[in-house]
């Protein structure tokens, strides 16, 4: 196989002692930050991005892959040992995982999460190796009209599939699109929405937006509602699994992987949907389904595998189309751009070595995660007991450092503060974060493609519709927007089959 030999080449490039060291440091830092309560993978990646400044692209990507997987694993550790997860993708892990921990089986819960993540991540990365080049080969033929339609589709999907209120999703999206307008217009060089501030002419760095909204917004929001009672953390020993745990875990791992990868590759909100589906599937298939709700290991193994497989899946559109579909992927895209790499159909041709090194480092990061984190679990658990004032002071400290280090201007700290206030507001008003972040990063790309398409037809609107693929995608968008209305009408007559599912989501 062609892809496989290229991957082996990538592994050869990535597997030097110094690179493995970078990957290990990345895994450690990522897990450390990801474990901290209130910090999900997207925030971990945004906060740690400055650490990779000054490295060459290869080393930076390798370290970043470690940070990415470490941050994800850290998040699931938190949700198992403390209830109430920080991320929507680990909601399902928390349900059974925390019950297991309370019943004295924290070690097994952490072990099945770690090994499941490893297996799912490895299979997912291998699938990525085969699918990304295939998609990229097709994507080279995609013209501006279809590209515009694809971006529109992913924004509509992310905004309307997730969250309880579509109105709030679209409000969030348009706040993001407005932020994305700030700066010089790409083709005429005129400044837009800079309010007379020349520092805004280069646009607003996505890192400042993300750190402001995730970290500062979270810290301010927590400060307004700080829980003034001690949190009970379940003590944990070294993770291990007995024979029965293995035999109950391996099928959920594989099923979770099968669900997670395809959902990660389409813009439907990342891991939220597949982890939820995986939980439902495992509960239905389990022989002892009455154990669910009291700490069933299948309910941790499946969703955790789905979570990691979908994380690998998000790299397919990211690498092949330059299209991020989750908040974490948006920050990875920004990171790659800051190393001078532009993901998209041409990337596999123009910088093939780098791509294969990245894919190889995902495999390495994933393996190191298992090797490092199984023995270290008790140490991570202690992190959960950091007193909250120091914890959030630390988050604000690193947020300020990250924003300031981007270009060493006090002005970036002002932006950080303003986006912190935006982050506070979106938490107060229940606006989802993801559409906002995607709006900031995809808005400019969308405008570029729209203008490319319209320039070809001299401004006639038909320029947006003159590719068959584009029309198919517009039909798809119409279905996505109209289907819920139809379903609601049908469901109104036929009672509620989904009550079962809704109960799980509410608990």
């Amino acid at each position: 196989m062609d892809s496989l030999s290229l991957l082996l080449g990538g592994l050869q490039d990535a597997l030097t002692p110094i690179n493995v060291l970078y990957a290990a440091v990345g895994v450690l830092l990522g897990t450390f930050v990801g474990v901290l309560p209130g910090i999900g993978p997207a925030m971990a990646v945004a906060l740690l991005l400055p650490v990779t400044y000054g490295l060459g692209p290869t080393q930076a990507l390798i370290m970043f892959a470690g940070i990415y997987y470490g941050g994800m694993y850290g998040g699931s550790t938190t949700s198992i040992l403390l209830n109430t997860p920080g991320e929507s993708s680990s909601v399902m892990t928390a349900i059974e995982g925390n019950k297991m921990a309370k019943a004295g089986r924290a070690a097994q819960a952490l072990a099945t999460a770690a090994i499941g993540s490893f297996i799912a991540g490895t299979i997912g990365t291998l699938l990525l190796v085969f699918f990304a080049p295939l998609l990229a080969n097709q994507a080279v033929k995609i013209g501006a009209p279809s590209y515009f339609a694809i971006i529109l589709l992913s924004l509509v999907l992310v905004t309307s599939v997730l969250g309880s209120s579509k109105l709030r999703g679209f409000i969030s999206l348009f706040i993001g699109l407005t932020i994305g307008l700030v700066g010089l217009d790409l083709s005429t060089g005129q400044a837009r929405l800079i309010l007379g501030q020349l520092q805004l002419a280069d646009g607003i760095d996505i890192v400042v937006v993300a750190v402001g909204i995730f970290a500062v917004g979270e810290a301010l929001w927590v400060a307004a509602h700080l829980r003034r009672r001690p949190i009970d953390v379940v003590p944990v020993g070294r993770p291990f699994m007995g024979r029965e745990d293995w035999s109950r875990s391996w099928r959920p791992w594989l099923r979770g992987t099968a669900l997670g990868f395809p959902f990660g590759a389409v813009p439907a909100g990342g891991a939220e949907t597949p982890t939820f589906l995986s939980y439902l599937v495992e509960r239905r298939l389990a022989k002892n389904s009455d154990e669910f709700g009291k700490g069933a290991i299948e309910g941790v193994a499946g969703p955790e595998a789905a979570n990691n497989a979908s994380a690998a899946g998000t790299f397919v559109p990211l690498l092949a189309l330059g299209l991020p579909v989750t908040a974490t992927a948006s920050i990875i895209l920004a990171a790659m751009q800051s190393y001078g790499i532009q993901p998209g159909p041409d990337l596999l041709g123009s910088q093939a070595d780098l791509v294969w090194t990245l894919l190889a480092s995902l495999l390495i990061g994933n393996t190191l995660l298992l090797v490092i984190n199984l023995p270290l679990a008790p140490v991570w658990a202690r992190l959960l007991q950091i007193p909250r004032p120091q914890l959030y002071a630390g988050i604000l400290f690193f947020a300020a450092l990250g924003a300031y280090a981007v270009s060493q201007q006090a002005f970036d700290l002002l932006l950080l503060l303003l986006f912190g206030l935006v982050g506070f507001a979106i938490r107060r008003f229940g606006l989802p974060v993801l559409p906002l972040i995607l709006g900031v990063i995809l808005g400019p790309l969308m405008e570029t493609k729209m203008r490319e398409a319209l320039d070809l037809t001299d401004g006639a609107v038909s320029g947006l519709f003159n590719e068959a693929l584009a029309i198919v995608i517009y039909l798809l968008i119409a279905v996505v927007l109209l289907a819920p209305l139809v379903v609601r009408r049908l469901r109104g007559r036929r009672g509620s089959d989904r009550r079962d599912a809704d109960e799980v989501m509410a608990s």
Partner: protein
Amino acid sequence: MSSAASEPDAAASRDVDRAQYGLAGVLALVGAYTIYDATTLNVGFGDPVGPRIFPYAIGAITIVLAVLLTVATARGSQAEAEAGEDIDLTTKPDWLTVLKLLGFLIFALLTVNFLGWAITGAVVFAGCAWSLGSRTVLRDILVGAVLSVASWYFFYVVLGVPLTPGILDGIL
């Protein structure tokens, strides 16, 4: 997600969430300004689309969303405030703490160029910890100083990025 969030919401759902009118107002202003700003741009020759259309569309839809939010609010639509592991939504928001934190962040942006990252960073850490209720001020200042000096050296030595030394120029 958590039951703590839904209970007070359910109890208050008869009331109208007035703050959402404020959000709608801000959105309408932002949308209007976006459209106004776009009118000041020039469309060049041979550029059939120009830099205006996209902001026009975004501004216009933002205004429509503001109107929809106003209608939804008047009909009793409630925001589902975000819950989390350290968040207790049953109490009233503690604005004093938020203002203190904002104060220290403003301090940081005003002083970082003059005092340098090492001093400003330490003050940010200790000040924020104090704002959030820590009473071990001396220890916090010490931890903050270690963090900020260590991060300064990490950026300088490992990453080759010299952060502003400020008044400690020559000492660090």
